[in-house]
């Protein structure tokens, strides 16, 4: 995606004298000096300059600076597809809220409060987003240790039951961070909504219909929902904190475990961001392999959505049919990466292995077969009367919602917003293949269903084209750019070449320093735009790594859309938003 052009920047500069503009190769930002002015600037950007697509808000901690915290908005102009970051310092830990201008900022501000302890003037319910109420610390601050602060003695019950054996059953630290009790959890629940209707219904956190561990609170008047809040954090593992403590290449397998249904796509977004930062070129073959696997993974992920989404609405058959195809894709991925689900197949600078023998034939057969299977799914659902009744005109998301809440992916496209990073800012080999972006009309559950079904078809088309291109390539074409100093050479070279061995040893042990700078780079995941913002200070690990999670923002529209609808619609709507908890909570 192009960053804001110089004309746009000039216009903004003209309107507000007190801002400075910082232009980097992969990053353009406005530095706002006067904190109180930020509301006006955001309003101006939204209304006059048309930067109305809210993408992200996050905070960076600089303990040594005078105003410790730096807030950053990322906005997009949905007509010209320009992207712009706006930086502003917190004044004595306070910033005026942006939730009136961009409702999507509400959750982002909650998260910022939870992780950094910063406050927002005018935001009446700043609550803990991921941790529970009464949690004492702010984990993403630089002075907080990764492992937390051990507070309570929590022995392993296996050891208690079996007795202290010699040698010990396992080696572990008996001191543990504070584990909340039911009272803490109840307090968290009570703080979220004040009951207005007749009954507050809990849905989740351990309910099969919530696609993981989400916790919904529904305030009900009869069967109609008049108030909703979502409690997240039941899978908050501290990914952003982990990233700050690891070398760049070490964080790659963690990205697999975020949105665990689309591991390759996550990796692709991440390696892309690092490659832009370190200026690494990727060989053509690797680009094609990446595209092919990302698209296979997209089909894989959409199949799971199809299976579970239909299962939630009572159609068990689709679940079994969809998993049949999933197994085939997983076999292709396993054959190449050696792992079924969390594959860790890509590497910074290329891919880990060359294509395994026979991959192309298998993939070719799969795609050929998949078209007919897709027809089968259509036959099961598209004209099914029950399916139509449950999905048509249910959970309508308008275009304005899409912009204001920062919805991306099939949820945005279902509402008619043709926002697809693969087209706007082509990465990997997406500029070399031909595909279409399906868009919906009204933005109900059925439209999102059709969009995802069509996306599977388009993905299959892309895979076909990648296979064609890969077949034409000579066999010994490089699949990783091993000349670059930050790229770990593949194992076949490490075992045969002294120089490569030394290089591999050096990077694995010490890491490779990445040049100073900032980058925000995103990829089109099956669920939307997964962005990585990296702030590098020239070390081998990032100073701050922010994950712009698509599921998180997509879910933030849920309370608004479900208002005055029934619980049965909530199931259909959640299925169509298709969040993955590993990514909402990170």
């Amino acid at each position: 995606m192009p960053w804001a052009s110089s004309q746009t920047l000039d216009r903004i500069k003209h309107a507000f004298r007190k801002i400075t503009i910082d232009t980097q190769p992969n990053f353009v930002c406005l530095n706002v000096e006067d904190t109180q002015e930020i509301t006006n600037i955001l309003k101006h950007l939204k209304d006059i300059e048309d930067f109305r697509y809210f993408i992200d808000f996050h905070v960076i901690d600089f303990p040594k600076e005078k105003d410790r915290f730096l807030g950053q908005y990322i906005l997009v102009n949905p007509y010209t597809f320009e992207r712009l970051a706006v930086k502003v310092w917190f004044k004595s830990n306070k910033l005026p809220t942006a939730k009136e201008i961009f409702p999507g900022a509400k959750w982002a501000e909650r998260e910022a409060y939870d992780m950094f302890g910063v406050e927002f003037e005018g935001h009446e319910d700043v609550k803990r987003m991921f941790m529970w109420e009464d949690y004492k610390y702010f984990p993403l601050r630089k002075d907080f240790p990764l492992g937390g602060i051990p507070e309570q003695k929590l022995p392993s019950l296996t050891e208690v039951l079996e007795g202290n054996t010699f040698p010990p059953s396992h080696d572990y630290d008996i001191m543990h961070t504070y584990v909340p009790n039911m009272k803490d959890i109840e307090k968290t629940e009570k703080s979220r909504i004040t009951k207005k209707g007749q009954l507050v219904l809990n849905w989740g956190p351990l309910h099969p219909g919530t696609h993981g561990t989400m916790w919904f609170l529904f305030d009900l008047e009869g069967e109609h929902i008049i108030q909703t809040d979502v409690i997240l954090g039941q899978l908050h593992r501290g990914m952003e904190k982990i990233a700050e403590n690891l070398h760049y290449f070490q964080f790659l397998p963690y990205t697999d475990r975020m949105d665990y249904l689309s591991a390759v796509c996550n990796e692709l977004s991440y390696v892309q961001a690092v490659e832009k930062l370190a200026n690494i070129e990727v060989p053509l073959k690797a680009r094609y392999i990446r595209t092919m696997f990302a698209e296979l993974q997209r089909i894989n992920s959409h199949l799971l959505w199809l299976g579970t989404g239909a299962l939630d609405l009572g159609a068990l058959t689709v679940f079994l049919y969809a998993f049949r195809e999933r197994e085939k894709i997983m076999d292709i991925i396993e054959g190449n990466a050696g792992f079924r689900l969390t594959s860790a197949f890509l590497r910074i600078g290329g891919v880990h292995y060359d294509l395994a023998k026979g991959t192309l034939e298998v993939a070719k057969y799969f795609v050929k077969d998949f078209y007919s299977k897709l027809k089968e799914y259509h036959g099961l659902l598209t004209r099914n009367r029950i399916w139509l009744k449950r999905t048509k005109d249910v959970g309508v998301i308008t275009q304005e919602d899409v912009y204001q809440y920062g919805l991306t992916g099939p949820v945005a496209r279902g509402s008619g917003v043709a926002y697809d990073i693969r087209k706007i800012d082509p990465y990997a080999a997406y500029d070399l293949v031909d595909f279409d972006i399906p868009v919906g009309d009204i933005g109900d559950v059925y439209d999102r269903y059709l969009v995802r079904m069509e996306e599977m078809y388009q993905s299959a088309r892309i895979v076909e084209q990648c296979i064609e291109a890969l077949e034409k390539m000579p066999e010994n074409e490089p699949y990783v750019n091993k000349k670059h100093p930050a790229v770990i050479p593949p194992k076949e070279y490490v075992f045969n070449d002294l120089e490569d061995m030394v290089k591999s040893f050096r990077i694995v042990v010490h890491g490779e320093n990445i040049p100073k700078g900032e980058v925000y780079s995103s990829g089109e995941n099956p669920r939307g735009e997964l962005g990585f913002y990296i702030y590098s200070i020239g070390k081998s690990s990032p100073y701050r790594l922010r994950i712009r999670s698509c599921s998180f923002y997509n879910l933030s529209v849920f309370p608004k859309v479900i208002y005055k609808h029934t619980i049965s619609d909530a199931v259909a709507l959640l299925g169509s938003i298709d969040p993955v908890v590993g990514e909402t909570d990170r």
Partner: protein
Amino acid sequence: MASSINGNGFITTTVDELLSWGRRNALWPVTIGLACCAIEMMHAAASRFDIDRLGMIFRASPRQADVLIVAGTVVNKVAPMLKLIWDQMPEPKWCISMGGCASAGGPFPTYSTLQGVDRIIPVDVYIPGCPPTPQGLIYGLLELQRKIREKKVTRYEKAFEEFKKDLSPELLSGIGV
């Protein structure tokens, strides 16, 4: 069954063994997925691996289930809720810790992650992997069957009494004992 069939078609066995035979051949896990491992758990139940054929049917209510498969990372916030579900399950019950995270925190030695589900729930079978393959899960379930066959049903109350002696009252309320 370790028993003999005599000529008249009678089986002689002990009641304990008969119960254990019944228990191990109808292990009903609770439908709970926490993270990535849950996807592989779903795969174990779906078309290709189909653990129904081993008599394992997922039950949505903990009251009807006797195996808790802890599939995924247990974070501190979800720990008391998971513990509640374990407490709601009727005896005899077993717990399988699926994957690295549930077994020992896995790759997440962080402020928010519970370092091993065995800190709140006694675990019978640990399955390594990140995530384990469906085959791995099925192997774990078969190992559990073997454990039930070889050992008598473990009663956890007794062990808990001893465990409680060492702990302070605040802590006990913390883990919901």
